[in-house]
């Protein structure tokens, strides 16, 4: 359909509804003709009349932001027909918990290495103090290794291999995002039973029996975030939109999404691959500590 006297194409909304797209069309600014799927998703979830009602209630300055969030919500619902945005929220909460755990472990390891370094410096003190320092010198980093084992429990961790890995080789490796994701997969598997219930979201996607209960407990937990969210969102309106102009979706989201959506069986199948990455990361950290203790 074309406008009178012009060659402008009808917007995706009017094309879908098979009606004339006038210059006063409310939806035309938000649904370009070349993205019909976007409008189909919004139409399927909200409906045209509901969208128009919502738009009419908003300030003109907020309409674009609101429509972007509506489109995002509809796209997520298209991708996850059962749980929609709730699935994304649970995934992010779990990711936060995972990263916080890893950060805590690394902080503790750093503290242990600092203590060891301090003792290493003390080795240059007068001979009176050497013997007492040497008594302490061997233990801290091995405690660090035990701490990491306790926290992370990789399945194929090999202390002998770690001991033989010189530091120069560690420097050549970098902690890539994919390694972290695989590592996190392993953590995800190993801590299946210890994950807080309100963060555990694997079951609803494959397990019929516990899906309702899991979802209910998660939704119950969601009530508080709704309260918190209000205050945070209202304060950050102006920050949020320009901030997300710099962020784009890429493969790593898909990568992490695939990892998140895998059932327990698939996760177990991925264990050897994940374990390899876990072991590699663990080896690097462990070897760093271990080699420090190998004082001649």
């Amino acid at each position, binding site marked *: 359909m074309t406008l009178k006297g012009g060659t402008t194409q009808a917007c995706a909304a009017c094309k879908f509804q098979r009606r004339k797209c006038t210059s006063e069309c409310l939806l035309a600014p938000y649904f370009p003709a070349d993205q019909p799927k976007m409008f189909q998703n919004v139409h399927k979830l909200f409906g045209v009349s509901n969208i128009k009602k919502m738009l009419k209630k908003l300030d003109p300055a907020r309409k674009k932001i609101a429509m972007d969030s509506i489109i995002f919500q509809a796209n997520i619902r298209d991708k996850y027909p059962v749980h929609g945005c709730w699935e994304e929220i649970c995934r992010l909460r779990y990711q936060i918990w995972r990263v916080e755990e890893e950060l805590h472990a690394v*902080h503790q390891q750093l503290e242990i290495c600092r203590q060891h370094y301090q003792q290493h410096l003390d080795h240059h003190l007068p001979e009176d103090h050497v013997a007492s320092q040497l008594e302490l010198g061997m233990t801290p980093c091995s405690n660090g290794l035990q701490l990491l084992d306790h926290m992370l429990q990789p399945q194929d961790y090999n202390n002998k291999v770690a001991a033989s890995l010189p530091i120069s080789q560690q420097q050549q490796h970098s902690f890539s995002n994919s390694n972290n994701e695989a590592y996190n997969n392993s953590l995800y598997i190993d801590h299946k039973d210890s994950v807080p219930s309100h963060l555990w979201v694997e079951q609803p996607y494959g397990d019929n029996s516990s899906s309702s209960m899991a979802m209910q407990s998660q939704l119950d937990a969601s009530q508080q975030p*709704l309260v918190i969210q209000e205050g945070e969102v209202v304060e950050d309106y102006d920050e949020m939109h320009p901030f997300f102009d710099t962020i784009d979706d890429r493969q*790593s989201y898909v990568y992490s999404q695939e990892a998140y959506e895998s059932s327990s069986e698939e996760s177990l199948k991925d264990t050897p691959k994940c374990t390899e990455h876990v072991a590699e990361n663990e080896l690097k950290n462990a070897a760093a500590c271990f080699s420090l203790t190998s004082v001649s």
Partner: protein
Amino acid sequence: MASSSSYSNSPCAACKFLRRKCMPDCIFAPYFPPEEPQKFANVHKIFGASNVSKLLNEVQPHQREDAVNSLAYEAEARIKDPVYGCVGAISVLQRQVIRLQKELDATNADLIRYTCNNDMPSGQASATRMSDDQGGGSTSLGQSPSDYYYPSPWNNNY
């Protein structure tokens, strides 16, 4: 748990709201008990009864309760925040993940640098520190903020 109001005399919250007879095969009845009228009111206001009905018909029966609960959550979020809805919470969480990941990378970098400096003679250690600084910052081990990609609500590339 789903209620059994479809088998009782009391109409479900949806049929009460819509002022119609609640039939035994009412698709809303198991998920919108009459004790929770606000739940259906919110869902109806944001999504509409026909859209919800179509959506429920498209998912498996054992998944319908989860679908209804997620719709109720999204509807309530949209009512409380008409601009961002539940997407606001997603944005906040995404930023938190990015911030934490950056902090983790920085801490890992400190740890590696620490262990390298401990192992090397002091001259080489300072050279390593200088090369790290020249290499574009000490906050990342091969990662940059742009590596943390999330489907942005504002780019419509989802």
